[in-house]
């Protein structure tokens, strides 16, 4: 159940370990685990040279100077490599989209998956910027601080998620 070469760990073991990861972030970096923030910081930073002046100086684009925000960027990118290591050691890397998409979208079309994926990414990052954090920022770090704001965002995220789940084809 805990072996690094096992494909699936108990959700409870993995969950407890993920919960412990907020500690180094808060104690050593004085920040929270929020990959959505890292994503926006990275995008704003990379696109800064080509963005018009008004966008470059928008309030949320100035997070770049904060070492905490850069911490989020490194976190975001290295998540990919952590997953790559785990998936490679168990030979569970995928080479096609998850079969769930053909089932819930009602078509195996890659275009349809591309369109819903793009729309999902768009709404997710727009919403996270508006709400000041994403699923992990509010749902984990915020709840661990008993923040009222995070509870409100979380309730709205669950409502949005369940509603979107009903729009997809049920299995």
């Amino acid at each position, binding site marked *: 159940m805990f072996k690094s070469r096992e494909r699936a760990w108990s*959700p409870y073991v993995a969950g407890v370990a993920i919960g412990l990861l907020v500690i180094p972030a808060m104690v050593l970096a004085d920040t929270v685990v929020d990959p959505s923030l890292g994503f926006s910081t990275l995008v704003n930073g990379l696109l800064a040279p080509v963005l018009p002046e008004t966008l470059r100086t928008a309030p949320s684009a100035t997070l770049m100077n904060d070492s905490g925000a850069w911490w989020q960027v490194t976190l975001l990118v290295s*998540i990919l490599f*952590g997953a790559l290591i785990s998936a490679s050691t168990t030979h569970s890397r*995928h080479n096609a989209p998850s079969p769930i998409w053909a089932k819930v979208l009602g078509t195996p079309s890659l275009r349809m998956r591309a369109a819903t994926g793009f729309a999902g990414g*768009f709404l997710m990052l727009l*919403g996270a910027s508006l709400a000041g954090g994403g699923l992990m920022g509010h749902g984990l770090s915020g709840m661990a601080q008993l923040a*009222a704001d*995070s509870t409100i965002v979380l309730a709205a995220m669950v409502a949005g998620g369940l509603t979107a789940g009903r729009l997809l084809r049920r299995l």
Partner: protein
Amino acid sequence: MLLVTALTLGLVNGLALGFLLEKSRAFEPGMVVGQMQLRNLILVKVWFSAIATALIAVTLLHELGLVTLHPHPIHMAADIVGGLLVGTGVTLAGGCPAMIMVQIGAGYRDAWFVVLGGVAGSVTFLAVEPLLRPLLTGGPGPLTWCDILALPRPALAVALSVALFACIMAMERLRPWRLDLGPRADGVHHGPPSHGADPLRHHPIPASPGPEPHRAS
């Protein structure tokens, strides 16, 4: 803190998070969509375990004076609209940004479309932010439940953790986590679809596993 230190810490923390999310299988689009359709409970089991752990850890560290809390200020309209957008987006994308990174690491190339959408969403926010300013200012400030309920943090933390633990126990009784894995540990069951008023009452045990579900070596 020095930038180099911040980057190194982020790197180690991210590697661990990516590894653990992959092991938990909660990053699989089949698990995420299944959770949002209440057919699959692995995501909520991982997440409740993580919150309960983080809650106790953060409360202990806070009592010892080792951490500063950073609750966000409450902006009711922005929180509700933003949260609804995130929830909808996570379902359509098949994961939050962290899970999308895990999906790319695990070989799901279609997750790059989500990344493109995320880039567009982030830039769009920069463009519309001036219009949304009224939603992002004012409000009652960064309140916690300890302030609102006038209760000590440790008592609230223990109460919430116990409640989460009770939920986890009930869910595991209702539906053991291995049933939700699917034959390829991706949350997709290939058997006949289960219909019914209460999807949780059905336990679609995979009849004939294709590739072995747990390839422990």
